[in-house]
């Protein structure tokens, strides 16, 4: 799995804006650090200081993840991701906390009580989205 933080995509767009050496070119914009779903779940739980547990469901399917080589963008656009998956999650959550008040903070404070209705969480996430777009 190739997962990239949005700020790194903005950096790539800005680099591409100032580059026009050829008429048509494609560039991969990826993280260079693949992660599987188990590790992602673990990192999200850790960063969010959550009490969630991970349930593993085994299947008999085969599936291959896709990863992007970013050497071309690095060499030509002088772009490379600044965020790791860990620092991206931390940055994301800190922005969510800053912009989603009071929902997200209340959620964190009360989470250990396990007594929040699910719609409260949905409201908090929705709030954060709305905040991001209107700030």
């Amino acid at each position, binding site marked *: 799995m190739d997962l990239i933080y*949005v700020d790194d995509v903005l950096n790539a767009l800005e680099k591409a804006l100032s580059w026009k050496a050829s*008429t048509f070119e494609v560039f991969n914009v*990826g993280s260079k650090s693949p992660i599987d779903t188990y590790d992602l779940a673990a990192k999200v739980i850790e960063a*969010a200081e959550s009490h969630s547990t*991970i*349930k593993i469901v085994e299947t008999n399917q085969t599936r291959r993840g*896709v990863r992007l080589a970013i050497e071309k963008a690095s060499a030509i656009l002088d772009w490379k991701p600044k965020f790791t998956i860990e620092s991206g999650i931390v940055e994301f959550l800190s922005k969510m906390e800053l912009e989603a008040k009071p929902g997200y903070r209340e959620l964190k404070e009360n989470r250990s009580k396990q007594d929040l209705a699910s719609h409260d969480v949905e409201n908090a996430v929705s709030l954060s989205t709305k905040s991001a777009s209107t700030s």
Partner: protein
Amino acid sequence: MHVLKIVVTGHTGFIGRHLTERLLDQEIIGVSRSTANDKLARSIQLDIRDMTQNKMEPYREDLEGADALIHLAAYRPIIRTGREDSLVENFSVNVKGTLNVLAISRRFDIGRIILASSKAVYGDCKSLFIESDVAKPVSNCGRSKLLAENICETFAECYGMHCTALRLASVFGLGMPNTLVFANFLAKALKSEIITVHKHLTGYEKWI
């Protein structure tokens, strides 16, 4: 400092909202079918599928001679009951819409285009892809994005426009679509609920 005039399609979407905040010191003109979350001083409410010459002519003064156009507007997969509907809508937005965007750009003398493409153009025949690999998309999103790239390449070759396609990995951040696995994990983590991950014969799921 020279202020750039930049047209952004899909400026009210996930990446678009972040981008317009980042480019506040530039002159941004947004094009989106939605006015939700629109804080720009100048924006055009229009679906890119309707971005015809006639409909865009009233905006000539706004768009003409812009330094660049960043094409973010795209079909966003959602769960539907009719697969045919989503397939047609997907190609209508990503292919016909991109053709409209390029045609209007040419008409209004916007010579620099950046397309937000996707890693989905590669398909899944191997794990690590470089840009020169043959693209064999296996999803409708990948197929339509590859055609969008081909349209950009065609306009670049025929009219000398400068087009760059960025094949994006899965993007996460504030305001990301709640259909992403990441968003699902986060919502569950915030509620301290159990997070379910699937382990295939090849290991844990690597696709998000």
